[in-house]
């Protein structure tokens, strides 16, 4: 599975994949999913930004995996790609993962030495993400 954080302009701030074989594939998937995210975000429009959205539709015929998206108020997007092969994670778990991601992200933001737009190099963020990924896979 992999976790990607993209900022306002869909610029990746953080990319992390656990099984590293299909990384490229993950990246590609994430990019395509970002489009869907954008679409959803713009669609919601005035309706308040939904805290999270689930993608269950991106299923390739060859491999199946689920792509989940999450958008913060500042249009920072988190995308998680998980293989469907591993026991499918429940919705709640995904939500909690996004929550954790979000909180870690805010911690990173709080760091005055972090300039928004930089790639995230925080060790704590890394550790949280890896812990999450290990836990879910």
């Amino acid at each position, binding site marked *: 599975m992999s976790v990607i954080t993209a900022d306002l302009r869909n610029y990746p701030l953080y990319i992390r994949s656990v099984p590293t074989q299909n990384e490229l594939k993950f990246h590609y998937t994430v990019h395509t999913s970002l489009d869907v995210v954008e679409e959803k975000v713009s669609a919601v429009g005035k309706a308040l930004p939904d805290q999270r959205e689930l993608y269950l539709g991106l299923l390739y015929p060859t491999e199946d995996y689920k792509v989940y998206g999450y958008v913060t108020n500042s249009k920072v997007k988190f995308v998680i790609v998980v293989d469907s092969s591993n026991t499918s994670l429940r919705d709640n778990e995904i939500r909690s993962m996004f*929550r954790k991601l979000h909180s870690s992200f805010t911690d990173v933001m709080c*760091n*005055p030495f972090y300039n928004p737009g930089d790639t995230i190099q925080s060790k704590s963020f890394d550790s949280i993400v890896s812990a999450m990924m290990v836990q879910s896979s």
Partner: protein
Amino acid sequence: MESLTLSDVEQKYYSDLFVYCDVDNTKKVASNGKVLDLFRAAQLSNDVVLQITELCGATRLGHFGRSQFYIALKLIALAQSGLPLRVESLNSVKDLPLPRFVVGKNEQESRHTAMYPDTENQGPYSSVIPRPPGRVPAKKLSTHEVIQPCVSAVEPQPDTTSPVVSPHQSPPTSPHAWRKHKRQASGGAVDRPPAVAGAAWPPFREAQPAGDGMWASHSPPPVQESWVSFTDTPPSSTLPAVHPSSAQESTTVRTVASAATTNEIQRQASGYEDPWKITDEQRQYYINQFKTIQPDLTGFIPGSAAKEFFTKSKLPILELSHIWELSDFDKDGALTLDEFCAAFHLVVARKNGYDLPEKLPESLMPKLIDLDDSAGVPESAPEVGFSSSPVEVTPNKSPSMPSLNQNWPELNQSNEQWETFSERSSSSQTLTQFDSNIAPADPDTAIVHPVPIRMTPSKIHMQEMELKRTASDHTHPTSPLMAKPPELSEEKKLAAIKFPGSTVGDGYSSSDSFTSDQEPISSAVTRQRSHSGTSPEGLKAVAPPPPPPRPHASHSRSSSLDMNRNFTAVAAGTQQQAGVVAFPPAVPPRPLPTQTSVPHGHRPVDGDGLPAHSSTSPQQMPEQPNFADFSQFQVFAVEQPVDDGDTQQDGGQVEKGVDAAGAVRATKNDTQAEERTPATVNSAKGSTPLAPPPKPVRRRLKSEDELRPDVEDHPQKSSVVPGVLATQASIPRSIGKDKKAIQASIRRNKETNTVLARLNSELQQQLKDLLEERISLEVQLEQLRPFSHL
């Protein structure tokens, strides 16, 4: 490998060394690098080292486990004594001196040697350590490594006493003084344990050159240096762990190592003290710097200002970012004084070449300034086994979520339930959700019944049950256990705010609001607690003691004049009843009518003797002096009764009409007894968690009990109406006034009946919910069990 027997001294020494080498803090394996360094420090040829490694089995295993390490140490001792290396000799050689390691092995060791003049080993050691003249400043980065042969030790430590002296020599305060001390300290100072400040000095030297370049704009470099020494050995701070043990030993056999170099040692781990401990001088310096940015010592330094400040140190942004993450404990984007000191300390350490720790060392944890939340966040740095400095110890920053995550890494990672809970509990979302949960619960709880005032445990439980029901989906059952007190308080406040509003409408404003205050609190509390069975107890423990009975609780139902009288009478007397509000017998003057059996149907809850109550009520009437109105009625009724023989004890189904009066009298005693029993039963029920609904009933019953002497009133057992009518009819003299009173009482009874019925159904519902919860909890427990085995 053959078993290795070590003397106590050896055991301690070896364990210290092992800890020292246990860079990764695995407690099982000593990192190869460190171990090899250590071995090399023993001044043995490489061949010998290799041989030892093989012998101890490390090459076989590929790493140094504890036993391998010990064996290796023993072999080193053997080798150093000039004995041939043989496995068999491990145990056979007696009185083997401890292995000596030249390079600043362990500050502890040095410390020990310094501190505790080792009787046996002193001599040889003192001369052993050829203190490298001075660590090359450039070597800062490598300072950690014990090995650096040239390193450390400023000067050989001729005497164990010298180290002891050095600390004293170092005068704390001014940086310049530090510098001087450094020189002096180098002479002896290995030992630092006692002098935190002094200890640092020697290392200064080394840091000096490097330090000069830095902080040009800041305080004098020496400060850094000294500090550097402290910050030394962050990564492998085995010190803290070792410290206690080593400190204990009087004969530290730590041998020579001391020689290692005061600097090294100090660096390594400020000896017994926490390597990350901030000395007073340092702290003072930090505080001064803090003041330049933020004059108010209790205020915050905003992130931007801190950024500028620390950028001056010319550390790479990435490292500064890391330092910030470590030091901004509450993740608020601003630095308090403590956080600032920690950050500064880390910067100094880094400047001097020491790696930054992964987690904030305990001694650097900011003290809780204002504790909103609970305190006691466990220290994050495992390496810091203990912190000798009282100042920095408090690891209680307010537990924000980040700190939560920081401090409960295992919990967060091990069990998602816990993790999610912690997130939930600490996130504002939970709070808001709780709010929303509380709100919906209000109507339920408010509805229950007019029972206003008393907050019996049962009622509390009931509230809790209701809230649990509504909130069960919201929080994990296990999560309540993790609830933090602050949450509780917040929830309480929230709940308290909400409840009164909702319950006011009942008409029992004063009492209701009171109870509602308690209810939400208890409900919040209970919600926080695990639902399984502990809630009742928890409730009881937590719920505030029920208020003293309200004397004049507005009881809309209390229509009878006597009730007020009863209230006053009872209120004065009965304060002890937990939460029993002097509730005068519900329908006080229920003259005859109660006899009728009709009420039976309405008395679902109390069961037992309830029916009897109704029948008895009329009887009690007569005994109630207060009910003057009905006394005459009673008289009539009594006159009427056929006879006393009628024992309608249980059935309570007093036949309408004729028997009524007789039954009344006859059953009077019974009913009284029964009343008592039901009352007690109810009260018993009330005390059990599952009997919230009967509260009103109970109360009335209890009050009845109380009032028994005064008024034997029949509990609110409704019913009677038909009976009343019947009796009324039978009564020859139906006075208009009495009729009205009777009808009023009938009405009241009916109301109470319905209330009771509702209570009953609700109780049943709650019971079901409770059982369901219990089952779900058990299931979860089952699920959790396997994890514990993992």
